């Protein structure tokens, strides 16, 4: 198969029926593998890694905190991408995937915030500090809420898809702006830099900061979270497709009656 025809075939999955049959086939793989990665990663991290010399056993929270924080951001990026696909190519599956992903993103953001707060309590002596990173996540959470609320509020599904897509676009710009504004607003009050630097797993200084003992189980957990995210989004998109179909069928019933 040539690359060109492969690229073409990607759009075939924009056909809802094709999407449903394909995801139905691959979903068990994603459920099982995400569970496997998560169990191995978390068990390894929880039971078989040593305590950090400075943070004690709280370092074990990293296996939940970092992957969920990563997914919270990646989920929004995915929603931005699918929103753009909807606006440009009008594939319904794309818009519904964004809708299906949003609650997953909310939960990921919540986990990141909750573990951050619980972790921060013994480390910083407070549940909540207006640290730039924490604050950015709180703002991201608000954007998620608004996005979901807009989907829920609008009756007509195409109108809802259009409006939420534009909101996602504009929201992305402002979430990004907020990130820098927040950095500017509270620079240097950073406590426990090692904690948060470890959080920046994608950063260049990762390897020195998080030693390999912590890094490998963390990697497993990240992969597990990614797979779980994919499984959840596939499954939930299927649900949204069916809900959309019910709506369309009922609308047609009303018109034809």
């Amino acid at each position, binding site marked *: 198969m040539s690359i060109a025809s492969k690229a073409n075939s990607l759009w075939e999955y924009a056909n809802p029926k094709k999407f449903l049959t394909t995801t139905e086939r691959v979903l068990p793989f994603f459920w099982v593998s995400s569970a496997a990665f998560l169990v191995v990663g978390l068990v390894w991290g929880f039971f078989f890694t040593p305590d950090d010399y400075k943070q004690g056993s709280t370092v074990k929270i990293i296996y939940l905190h970092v992957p969920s924080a990563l997914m919270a951001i990646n989920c929004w990026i995915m929603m931005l991408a699918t929103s753009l696909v909807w606006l440009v190519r009008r594939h319904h599956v794309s818009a519904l995937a964004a809708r299906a992903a949003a609650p997953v993103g909310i939960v990921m953001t919540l986990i990141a915030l909750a573990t951050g707060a619980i972790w921060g309590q013994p480390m910083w002596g407070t549940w909540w500090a207006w640290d730039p990173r924490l604050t950015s996540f709180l703002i991201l959470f*608000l954007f998620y809420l608004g996005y979901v609320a807009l989907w829920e509020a609008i009756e007509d599904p195409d*109108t809802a898809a259009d*409006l939420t897509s*534009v909101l996602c676009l*504009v929201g992305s710009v402002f979430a990004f702006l907020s990130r820098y*504004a927040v950095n*500017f*607003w509270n620079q240097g009050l950073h406590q426990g830099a090692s904690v948060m630097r470890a959080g920046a797993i994608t950063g260049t200084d990762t390897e020195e900061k998080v030693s390999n003992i912590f890094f490998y189980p963390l990697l497993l957990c990240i992969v597990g979270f990614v797979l779980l995210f994919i499984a959840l989004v596939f499954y939930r998109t299927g649900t949204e497709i069916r809900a959309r179909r019910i709506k369309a069928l009922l609308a047609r019933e009303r018109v034809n009656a």
Partner: protein
Amino acid sequence: MIALLKRDLTLAFRAGGGFGLGLAFFLIVTVLVPFSVGPQSSLLSTIAPGGLWLGALLACLLSLDRLLALDWEDGSLDLLATAPLPLESVVTIKALAHWITTGLPLVLAAPVLGVLLNLPVPGFFWLVVSLAIGTPALSVLGTFGAALTVGLKRGGLLLSLLVLPLYVPTLIFGAEVARRGATGMETATPLLMLAGITAATIALLPFASAAVLRVNLR
């Protein structure tokens, strides 16, 4: 375009137009601040710049749900959409009218309310400057939110939920200018950022607002 601006301003100033409500709200919020945090003048002057910015922002928010909803209900928006005026201009004019009737009075009233909150003397100038530069962005962003929720029966609360996160950068930089100004610190950087955000918002967001409005009209 000028006709639309003139009409919106006339409507706002006539009875029932709601002009001054935002201002009164701003006054009340400011008066409530000392009641909630206590009357110590040192404390009040610390929170005065931020408190006034927050009050102004909320007062701006208050009138947003009428911004497009009235024109939607009486069919004016349908007719404007079929008029020679592009919708991008319509939403820009609407935002401008909102700023003139809500934002501008807030800017002018802010120094008076600053006295109530014991704002340090150097802060007055910077408060007015930051509000004057920041509030247009609030109106334009609010118009976008109003365009998103215009077709909804009870869009008011949703509108706040959608618009408030978008207000974060403007609030941060605007209040930062006022705070730094009040304590005699350098204000150029946040002021520049604030002006940049406002300029970019005014230049780009009307396209999104118009696109969203078209979707809602169909």
